[in-house]
């Protein structure tokens, strides 16, 4: 009996801890600026949606010259994430197919590709910074996409290989008996059948790219600034504009949350399959 009650207590405490910060951010986003710095912290107050309004339509706190520029940075994030996802899958799927069906390169190749997951991105930060300055890739979307590819292609290969391994070859063999070449069987049979796997990988890569911070922060200055980088500058330069920041955060967390809830089945499947590989 005591065991049952203590179990529920722990569950509730864990749930509270998991949810409270986000709930608090939501509360903060609907407070007035004065309410936010109220001591003791206020839980009940007259809500205001001014901050959402100003973030969405004006771009930031009215009295601030520097605008949060939600839309342009959001757009950058979307473009970079989509580009990375599309390219990573386009590059990774053929490789995954090759390794899964032909065991190309055997274990050495697979471990070599795996080893990239061990490399801390920080190691690439300075060389890429220098390289990008020299070749004019600084502050470009394509620049970000290229560096993101380096980290996401191995992931794509891995997870897709896992999915392909689980997919029976019979269909492709049947196709080849009917006259397909190897490439055609990849294109017309394996690819469509890997739909779920590709969706899972795409979601994972998209989320990673969208939330990426370090490279976005260092390798962009004005034009290609993504949401995360912009938020960081906003946080450090305008620490007092909590409510606006909170509103921006909620705007970004909620869609992510909805999307992840809807697609959680796929994501979990993708993660688990990738682990098997």
């Amino acid at each position, binding site marked *: 009996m005591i065991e049952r009650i203590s179990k529920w207590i722990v569950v509730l405490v864990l749930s509270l801890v998991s949810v409270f910060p986000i709930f608090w951010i939501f509360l903060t986003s609907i407070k007035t600026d004065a309410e936010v710095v109220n001591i003791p912290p206020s839980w009940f107050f007259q809500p205001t949606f001014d901050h959402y309004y100003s973030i969405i339509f004006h771009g930031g706190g009215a009295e601030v010259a520097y605008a949060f520029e939600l839309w342009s940075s959001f757009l950058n994030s979307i473009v970079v994430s989509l580009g990375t996802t599309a390219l990573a899958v386009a590059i990774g799927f053929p490789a995954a197919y*090759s390794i899964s069906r032909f065991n190309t390169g055997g274990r050495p190749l697979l471990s070599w590709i795996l080893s990239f997951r*061990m490399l801390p991105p920080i190691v690439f930060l300075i060389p890429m910074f*220098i390289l990008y300055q020299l070749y004019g890739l600084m502050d470009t979307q394509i620049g970000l996409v290229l560096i993101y590819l380096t980290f996401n292609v191995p992931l794509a290969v891995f997870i897709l290989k896992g999915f392909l391994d689980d997919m029976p070859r019979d269909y492709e063999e049947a196709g080849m008996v009917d006259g397909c070449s190897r490439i055609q069987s990849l294109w017309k049979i394996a690819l469509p059948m890997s739909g779920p796997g590709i969706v899972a990988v795409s979601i994972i890569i998209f989320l990673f790219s969208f939330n990426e911070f370090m490279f976005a922060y260092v390798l962009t200055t004005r034009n290609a600034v993504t949401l*995360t980088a912009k938020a960081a500058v906003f946080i450090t330069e305008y620490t007092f504009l909590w409510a606006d920041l909170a509103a921006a955060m909620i705007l970004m967390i909620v869609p992510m949350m909805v999307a992840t809830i809807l697609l959680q089945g796929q994501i979990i499947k993708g993660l688990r399959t990738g682990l098997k590989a």
Partner: protein
Amino acid sequence: MRFPSLARRGSAREEARIKYALVLPTIVTLLVFTTYPLLSQFYLSFTSASIYDYNSPPPAGVSNYSYLLYDPGLFWQSGIITTIYVGLAVLLQLLLGMLMAVLIYSLKRGQKVFTSLFIFPMFVAPVFVGALGRLIFNSMIGVVPYYLRTFGLPMISLSNPIHALLLVISMEVWKWTPFAFIILYGGLESLPAEVFDAAKVDGASGPRTFLHVTLPMLKSIVAVVLIIRIMDELKAFDIPFILLEGGPGAPVGATTIFSLLIYKLAFSYNNFGAAAAVNVLLLFILLGLFWIMIQRLLK
């Protein structure tokens, strides 16, 4: 009888061409974008490059390395902090994740509800987790310090190095525990139920069953989570950076893990050479870890 497939698939050479062609883009992408950075870091570590002369930096021999390795307050201090950070963060994620998994597994009702609640932190981008932390633990207007004060509990001060480190670890744990939870729960689900029934028949109690039956069966999944999270925490940057930018103190503050040290050396102290040296040292450490891991796995 015609066997069109055999006729077409005639040469093994064609198959070889195709299979290598398929992996080529991947190999090229990876090679191009990693060889240069790695080589450049190695080279730069022997120079005293800065933001002005990174193109033809003045050579500096091993001075960067001696500077880093002889001064206990730089590389070694950051190393200690990184070790504590990674160790505690991963340990907590595993323990809490396991706790969550076991709890949800043993719930009769509300599994879905509580799972969704537990997963919340995963949706927040690391940058925002940092921002969140700053707001909630702000010594003046933060919720947590306020209630700690009210209830007479010990105060959390961000200028206290230990508190700062614990805070950074806590936020990281908050964000990533759901990941461990999901994987471990999947592991729990895939365990055959008969073993638990057998244990119950033999009269084993809850905790004993867990320790002697469940846990051993989950060993490989736990190992996987452990390795993945260690690798990820070694790369951590976003949350510590936004929270405290390296923590109270400089140049190596209380929360300056390796990645932050490299960033600081390069962009705050304008010392690309020293930053590169730390990178090289870090790579050696990781290689060592990787090698140990491979040895273990091959047994």
